[in-house]
């Protein structure tokens, strides 16, 4: 499941979808079954882990490079996207959008940051920071209970005409909103995630439709994610996933402007310290 937050929802890394949210269930099926008849959330997630390759497959790798594209067809925009991940929790997202420039978002496992020509340099804090680092973590799937304090199956709802279990995921930590994952009843795969994009600018609900799972080194990874955000549709396509590529730790070092901001934001040392 966590891997979906870090890979399948690559686009979320770019738009900062990040934190999950519980959306209302106004579109729920009328025949939604009672909660008592549903499989436990934990059971649904464990089935998802198995369906995508299992814990052993997940544990095989310590680095990953994912490449893809992000399209906003109605706006005539297309971005390239590359995500670098190094176990246990380092990550770097690079995207280039014509006319907007190169945008980067990353973490050395401690400090999460973003930098781009339009908004400049920024150190992420609070839930925004926690979410990004969580997205980069390699054990997010296999040790999902470390990051989510509960997973509750709350119903069944059709996603593109096929029934899926709705599981409310409550993350560990203060100020982090819930998310709702939709797990296909037949395949066990996540087919939709309802989250919320959170930043100092505010919150926006994000609905991600997830499909076209393909096998990359024994792990099934969705290669198409279509997101609806604020009335706009974005489509992320994964083109390649390379495991255990050579990634230097230096790649995840903080950029100079982030280091400067960090120094400026550090509390002044008290005399004698």
């Amino acid at each position, binding site marked *: 499941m966590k891997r979906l937050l870090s890979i399948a929802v690559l686009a979320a890394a*770019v738009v900062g979808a990040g934190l999950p949210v519980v959306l209302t269930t106004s579109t729920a099926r009328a025949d939604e079954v009672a909660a008592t008849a549903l499989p436990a959330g934990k059971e649904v997630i464990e089935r998802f882990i198995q369906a995508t390759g299992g814990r052993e497959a997940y544990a095989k790798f310590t680095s990953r490079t994912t490449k893809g594209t992000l399209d906003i067809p109605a*706006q005539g925009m297309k971005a390239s996207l590359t995500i670098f991940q190094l176990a246990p929790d380092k990550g770097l997202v690079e995207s280039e959008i014509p006319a907007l420039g*190169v945008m980067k978002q990353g973490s050395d496992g401690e400090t999460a940051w973003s930098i781009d020509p339009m908004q400049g*340099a920024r150190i992420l804090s609070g839930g925004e920071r926690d979410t990004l680092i969580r997205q980069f973590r390699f054990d997010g799937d296999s040790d999902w209970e470390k990051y989510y304090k509960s997973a509750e199956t709350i119903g069944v709802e059709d996603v593109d005409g096929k029934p899926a279990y709705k599981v409310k995921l409550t993350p560990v930590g203060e100020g982090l909103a819930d998310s709702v994952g939709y797990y296909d009843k037949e395949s066990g795969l996540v087919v939709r995630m309802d989250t919320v994009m959170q930043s100092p600018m505010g919150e926006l609900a994000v609905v991600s439709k997830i499909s076209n799972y393909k096998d990359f080194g024994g792990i099934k990874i969705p290669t198409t994610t279509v997101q609806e955000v604020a*009335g706009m549709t974005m489509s992320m396509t994964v083109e390649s996933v390379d495991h255990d590529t050579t990634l230097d730790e230096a790649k995840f070092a903080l950029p100079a402007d982030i280091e400067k901001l960090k120094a400026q934001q550090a509390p002044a040392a008290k005399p004698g310290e």
Partner: protein
Amino acid sequence: MKLSIFGLLVCAFALLPGCRSAKSADLAPIDDARRQKHVESFDQVWTTIRDQHWDKDLNGVDWSAARDELRPRVQAAKTDAEARAAMLALIQRLKQSHFGIIPSEAYERVASLPSGDDSKTPGAGQGDSGIHVSVVDGVALVTEVEANSPGAAAGVRPGWILESAGKLEVADVLKRVDAAYADSSLVLAYRKLTTQQLLSGDAGDTVRATFLDGSNHRVKKEIVLATPQGKPAKFGNLPTFYLRTTVKEVSPGIGYIAFNAFFDPPTVSTAFKRAVEQFEKADGFIIDLRGNPGGIGFMANGMAGYLVSEPGTKLGTMTMRSGDLKFVINPQPTIFKGPVAVLIDEGSMSTSEIMSGGLKDIGRARIFGTPTPGAALPSRIEKLPNGDGFQYAFANYVSAKGDVLEGKGVTPDVEVKPDRKSLLAGQDRVIEAAVDWIRSKK
């Protein structure tokens, strides 16, 4: 990076000369297939506004009745112009800025342009005179003539008054503009843009214009238009825009930056960052947004991050159906802490209003110039089935102090109009007022 992907566009692009309709192509008869494309486009426009407008009540307009009335006009249209007129009539019912139709011809013209900085070949694409005008006290005053431009080559000078272009008398045009927009703050913008448009056309076209020179002699000039100066910039579904950025020490110890649009952050935002770094220790910093129609909204708070050191400060708030987004300022590693002056005029729209109004509201800048028109709705541009661009606002914008900018604009702290005598003497009264204020703060 977060949110920037929205490409939040806050530019009244559909108002600009580059988006004018084709001269004759849209008057040609159309066939049934083309007419059907227009009907599909009308439906897309109607549905998009119904679903995306931030106000579910659509500013009080009976939207279904508007469709029932206007859709038959598209179905019966004999030309592109008639179909577009019906679509425009629909969106004009809202009486708000940032709703417009960009004719497909505008894209076709720019598509024929060579790419790169040297794309100045006459005879193709949009043409520009390099002459900037403002309507001051009822006359079209030339406020700037770009160096090496067709206007400069023709000998036009700042301080001259444009009287006519082609067969159109400026006075008549202004009367029509004033009549059409009598009840709208946008009249300020349309006076300037429409007058400016008299001096535009396709590259290679010749505009025959009459001016009053500095001695009040009537002079006739033939101006051969050329591709606009500056760096061509593309953003999503917008036609090409030409970016010009100027950074200089405008007076000893005072930094100055001017840019004509909020596009291409790698160029414009980076220039802003470098200007702040260059003038970090200067006595003052002037940001000239006169004639800047806006662009990408989030560039405003990005730039403000080089002027404001208090984390969490916001320029304003964008309100959508799906929630609010705050234009939060992220303080940058290098911040200019001295006095900041922002220059505005009736051509400063959208993102320019967000930036100037926001900096004024939080007390970070003193504003000089003339009032802005109040065209500040965040918008997007989508392609329609007929090939046209459709610009629509999807959010309202409220300044840091809670004022809705749309229809009201930004009022300068110090109102300074362009002055003919000063322009003829090679002076810029607005810049001088800002310089004087900065000097007084030392």
